[in-house]
C-alpha cells in the first residue's frame, strides 16, 4: 500500500512551513502550494489523499476557492474527496462550499499539535 500524501495550500509562507513541519513530524508525506493554480498543477501530476487549503488566497490566475473545488470535481483530481478548508473568516456561504464535497472547514487560528493528528485520522480512515 502506498504512503498517504497531503497537499497544503496557503499564501502565508510561514503557515505553509509550519504545517509542512507538523505533517513531516508525524511522518506524513506532504507538498505545499502557495496558490490554487499551483495546487491544481500538483494535483494533476500526482495523487493526494488529503488537500488542506485556505479559503481566501490571492491566486496568480485569479481562481477562487469555488473555482478550485470545481476543477477538482470536473477533472476528478481527488479520488478520496478528503478536502479540508481553513478559514480566518469568509464572506462565503459555508453551505455552498460544503455542497462542493468538502469534508470539513476549520477555523484559523488553530494549534497544529491538535489539528494535524485529527487530519491524519482522515488518512487512516480512508485506508
Amino acid at each position, binding site marked *: 500500500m502506498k504512503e498517504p500524501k497531503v497537499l497544503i495550500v496557503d499564501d*502565508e509562507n*510561514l*503557515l505553509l512551513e*509550519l*504545517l509542512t*513541519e*507538523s505533517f513531516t*513530524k508525524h511522518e506524513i508525506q506532504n507538498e505545499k502550494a502557495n496558490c490554487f493554480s499551483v495546487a491544481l498543477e500538483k494535483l494533476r501530476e500526482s495523487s493526494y489523499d488529503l488537500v488542506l487549503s485556505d479559503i*481566501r488566497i*490571492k*491566486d496568480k490566475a*485569479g481562481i*477562487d476557492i469555488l473555482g478550485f473545488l470545481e476543477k477538482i470535481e470536473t477533472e476528478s483530481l481527488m479520488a478520496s474527496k478528503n478536502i479540508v478548508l*481553513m*478559514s*480566518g*473568516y*469568509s*464572506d462565503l456561504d459555508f453551505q455552498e462550499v460544503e455542497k462542493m464535497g468538502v469534508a470539513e472547514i476549520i*477555523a*484559523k*487560528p*488553530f*494549534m*497544529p*499539535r491538535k489539528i494535524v493528528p485529527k487530519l491524519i485520522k482522515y488518512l487512516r480512515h480512508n485506508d
Partner: protein
Amino acid sequence: MLSTLDSLNVFLVEDSPEDVLFFKRTLKHLREKHPEINFEFQHSNCLKDALVKVANTSFDIIFLDLSLPDSQKFLGLEKLKEQLEDHFPIVVLTGDENDSLALEALNRGAQDYLKKSEMNAYNLSRSLMYSLERSKAAKELEELRVHQAKTLKMATLGEMSGSIAHEINNPLAIILGYTDILLADIEEGVDSDRLKNSVEKIEETTVRISKIIKSLKSYSRRSEQDPMSQIAFPEILEDTLNLCIERFKTSKIELKIQHIEPAHLLCRDIQISQVLLNLLNNAHDAVKKNDKAWVSIDSSIVDDKLKVLIQDSGSIKDESVRRKLFSPFFTTKPKGEGTGLGMSISKSIIENHGGSLMLLDNSKNTCFEISIPIVAVSNEKSA
C-alpha cells in the same frame, strides 16, 4: 411662533436715516404685538462699524442693507459671514424692485430678503420668524451630517470587518503554530538556534497584528476635534493600506502603488486616512466584478501642493453620475450598501484642510485627484 422667544437681539446695518427710522417704527409695532418678547435693537450705518459691533456683541439676527457707503452689493454679506458662525440668520434689505439681486444674496448665504417698499410689522415678523427657523434647521442639518459622518466611518469599518478578521487570524495562526513548535522543542531539548527562530517568528508576527490594531484604533476614534499636526504622507497611506489591502487581495484587484511623495502635511491624519480609505473602497467596489481590475495610487508635488491620484480600471460614462457624485445621499451602490455620504464628506474634509477633491475630466479611467497644501520640513526632525 415668535412668541416662543423671550428675547431677541436685532442688529440693523443701514445708512439711510429714513430707512432706519422706518425700521424702528416697524419694530415698535412688533413690540406692541409681542410684549412678552424683550426686543433689543442696535444699529450701524456702515460696514466698518458693523463689523466691530458684530465682533463684540452676540446678536440673534442681522438686517443688512445691500447698499452702504463702504460696501456695495455682496461685500457686506461676505465680510459679516466671515465673522459669524455658519447659517447665522442675515436678512438682506433691498430698495431695488428687481428680485435678482436679492436672490443672488440668498445664494450667497443670506437667510431671507425683505424689500423696503414692503416693510411692515407683518412682513418683518414673518421674515424674522422665517430666518430664525431656517437658521435653526440648517444648524440641525449640519449636526445630522456630522453624526452621519461618524456613522459612515463605522459602516465602512463594518464592511471591512471580514477582511480584518482574516488579516488578524492568519498571523494568529502563525503565532499559535510557532508556540506549538516551541513547546515540542523544549520538551525534546532542541538546540537554542531552533528555539530562537520560533521566538523571532512569533515576535515578527505579533508586530504585524499590532500594526493592524493600531490602524484600526486610530481610524475608529473621534477625530473631528483633533488638532492639526504635521505628518508624512507615506505614514498616513501606510495606515490606510493596512486596513484595506486584504480586501483588494480577496477580490483579486491589483493595487498599484506608484510614486509616493515623502511630503509632510499639516492635517488631521485620521481624517485624511478616512478620505483615502473611502476613495480606495469606492474604487474597489466599482471594479470588483471586472476582469483584470486594478486600482492605482500615485502622487506628485505641484506648486506647494501634494496631488494624490486615485485611479481605477473602470470609468464613469453617465454624465448625471459625474455631476451628482459629490452630492450628499447620492449613491450608485445597491440599496443598503452605500450611505451616499462618503464623497460629500470626503470633499468637505479636504476643503477644511485648504485643499480640493475632484473627479478629473480628461482621464480615460475614473480618476480622483486630492490636492492638499504641504508644509516645508527642515532637515532637523520637526515635531
